[in-house]
């Protein structure tokens, strides 16, 4: 037996059984496919608003309500959402003669335009005009992607992996900018601007540069633009392209994804189930919005970051390890279905095992290695400890060091830098500096240790990884079985009865449900058409 094992090249560090891996993926597909079907059968207010944003409708009225919200609301009241807003809007635009989208939106909110579903020649003309307008927005996204590639070629890329990911979160974009630039100079390859708490539950995207936020800064098109411009400047100064990250999650996923594409953001947080489980957003709304937003990310060349770390902030990191793997497999399926490629999948996981339990480091290593071996071509996003950061900053610094070591040993692509003052204060300048020294020390001292390190084939680490993969398959199996009784979408039922993160989220409840509509037979959306290459 030993000779045959040595004869062939092992797959990854753990030498996982390929049949088992295939089975896990095919179960994820089985569970995911009915959800994609549901996503294809529905549209949402945010998908429609994103379509208008692609056609160039920006800005807000005097009360701060975005024009896209005004327009979609009136179109919906007149003809419903189920046909898509494109035809009624461009029909009205044609009839208004010479006006632009903003004028139509203003007139609509003043009640002086009535929308209809055009037919015959009118429909044909509206279709052409809408297709052209939305198409030019997508061309702009394409141009921004090309621009990114050119800048990386000309300026240079991040010098090594993992990319160092640092967060700014002042609430004020004009404070964020110097902080972000300072963080980049200190060594960050990626800057993430944390959003204001609660933005995910706003059913509109705020407008303009903002200076007021709770525990973060609002995601707005102008804030995106300002930050990207500032980081472009710093990138040139440093001779390496500094990537910018924000959040396409919550009720406005499709619109924020669109704005990110238009303003050349580089990575976006985008999880398939986070909004449902942790924000109580309606499951259908989430899956529809998520699919559209991922299609936009795919087109824009944006790397998504999924949110599996969140499971471990509420559930035990050992008992629930397989829910992370399950979610990674589902996120991978949904992402690929939406057109994202392996290099764009920053699948998430985290170092959250209670440091007081025996062998916690070996368990962390097993879990991280499993993710690496299951998704060899995905960048993977490795999240630092938060739950067991107690306020003892000295102990926390050591934990972060071990976290960095696991990251180095398992070739993580994106490393969120852990702060010893986690759970104490928002990071100080000195916290960030110390945290980066920690990362540098570990990478410098042990960055190539993976070359020498291979776990015992039947040792603790390999066994644990196989166990987690086995439990993942059991869970996916259990989910797949649930569907036989009910809606035909077993995943919705699993979410409804609390399989993930212990939260029960039925498909007919949750925030944003009123913004979902089942598509009519004649539904038409030029953006989806282009993005899906129809």
């Amino acid at each position, binding site marked *: 037996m030993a000779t045959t094992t040595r004869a062939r090249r092992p797959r990854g560090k753990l030498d996982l059984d390929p049949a088992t891996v295939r089975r896990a993926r095919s179960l994820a597909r089985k569970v995911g496919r009915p959800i994609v079907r549901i996503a294809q059968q529905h549209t949402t207010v945010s998908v429609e608003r994103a379509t208008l944003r692609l056609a160039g409708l920006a800005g807000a009225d005097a009360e701060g309500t975005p024009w896209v919200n005004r327009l979609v609301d009136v179109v919906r009241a007149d003809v419903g959402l189920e046909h898509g807003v494109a035809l009624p809007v461009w029909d009205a635009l044609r009839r208004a003669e010479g006006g632009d989208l903003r004028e139509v939106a203003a007139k609509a909110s003043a009640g002086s335009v009535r929308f209809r579903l055009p037919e015959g020649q009118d429909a044909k003309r509206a279709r052409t005009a809408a297709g052209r307008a939305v198409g030019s927005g997508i061309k702009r996204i394409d141009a921004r992607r090309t621009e990114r590639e050119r800048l990386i070629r000309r300026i240079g890329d991040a010098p090594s992996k993992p990319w160092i990911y640092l967060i700014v979160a002042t*609430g004020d974009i004009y404070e964020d900018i110097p902080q972000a630039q*300072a963080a980049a*100079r*200190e060594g960050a390859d990626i800057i993430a601007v944390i959003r204001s*708490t*609660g933005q995910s*539950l706003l059913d509109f995207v705020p407008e303009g540069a903002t200076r007021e936020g*709770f*525990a973060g800064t609002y995601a707005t098109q102008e804030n995106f633009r300002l930050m990207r411009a500032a980081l472009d400047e710093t990138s040139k100064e440093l001779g390496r392209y500094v990537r910018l990250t924000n959040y396409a999650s919550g009720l406005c996923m499709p619109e924020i994804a669109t704005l990110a594409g238009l303003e050349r953001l580089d990575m976006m947080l985008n999880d398939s189930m986070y909004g449902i489980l*942790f*924000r*109580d957003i309606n499951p259908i709304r989430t899956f529809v919005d998520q699919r559209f937003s991922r299609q936009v990310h795919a087109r824009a060349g944006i790397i998504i970051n999924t949110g599996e770390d969140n499971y471990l*902030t*509420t*559930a*035990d990191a050992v008992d629930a390890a397989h829910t992370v793997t399950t979610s990674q497999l589902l996120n991978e399926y949904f992402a690929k279905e939406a057109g994202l490629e392996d290099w764009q999948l920053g699948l998430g996981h985290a170092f959250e095992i209670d440091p007081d339990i025996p062998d916690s480091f070996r368990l962390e290593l097993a879990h991280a290695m499993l993710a690496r071996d299951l998704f060899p071509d995905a960048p993977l996003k490795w999240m630092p400890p938060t*739950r067991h950061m107690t*306020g003892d*900053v000295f102990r926390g610094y050591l934990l972060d060091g071990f976290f960095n070591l696991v990251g180095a040993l398992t070739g993580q692509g994106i490393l969120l830098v852990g702060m010893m003052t986690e*759970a104490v204060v928002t990071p*100080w*300048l*000195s916290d960030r*500096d*110390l945290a980066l020294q920690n990362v540098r020390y570990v990478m410098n001292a042990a960055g190539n240790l993976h070359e020498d390190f291979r776990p015992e084939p039947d040792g603790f680490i390999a066994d644990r990884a196989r166990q987690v993969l086995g439990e993942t398959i059991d869970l996916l199996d259990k989910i797949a079985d649930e569907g036989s009784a009910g809606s035909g979408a077993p995943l919705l039922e699993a979410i409804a009865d609390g399989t993930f993160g*212990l*939260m029960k989220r039925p498909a007919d409840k949750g925030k944003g449900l009123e913004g979902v509509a089942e598509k009519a037979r004649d539904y038409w959306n030029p953006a989806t058409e282009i993005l899906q290459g129809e």
Partner: protein
Amino acid sequence: MAMGTVVSTGSTGGAGGPIRPYGDTTGDGMVQLSFTLPIKHSKIAEGAAVQLANKMGMDPALVVHAKQMGEDYTFFVVYGRVNHLVDPRAVEVVERDYPLLSPQEANAAIKRTLRRRLVVVGGCIGTDAHTVGIDAILNIKGFAGEKGLEYYRELKVVNLGAQVSVPELVEAAQHEKADAVLVSQVVTQRDAHLLNTREMSAAFRESYPPHKRPLLIVGGPRFDETMAGDLGVDRVFTRGTTPGDVASYLVHRMTERKAG
């Protein structure tokens, strides 16, 4: 204090009398401090760091580490001696004023006095999405090796989860005929935890006659235990609270209410 972290170990010797920080010898008064000054690293910068430490009462103060960060900032670690005495007898804290019960004892006490299950409604109010605290107390999984309130047979727990609005909370409390309402607040930006708690307690005062109002309990890592009265709640729990603490408090107050 706002600009630095003071870390020291107090001697517990001396039968409750005044004490000073302990490094490695009783009475040495040694403390450690770290902070950043907005200045390039130089001898002058180190002198400025010593000056700050002196002004804070450290004398002598020794800069053991100085490192420039970026162009204009330097990080310092300073060790030194303070002469201050602290008197534990003059410290005011909220001590637990009720007996700590095991889940079995808590269940038995509820059964004996209420003759029904005690209803607890909990959640995170406002925009706070951090359910870590409320889940640690309510979820059967619990915290620090203790099972959460869901584990108590005589407690009915309704966990509303994250981002519950105050009206939703009041409505749920009324609907469930809650004996107690538990609110967790982790986000403290701009004192959101205090504002939210006051809004919550005001809403309960408006919606209930005084003697019918459920017990209002708020918890989170950044609360001050002495603020209950100011916030309009019955009890504030802070860092390190376990489900057992909360359950024991509930039993104590409910049985007290019943007796009174």
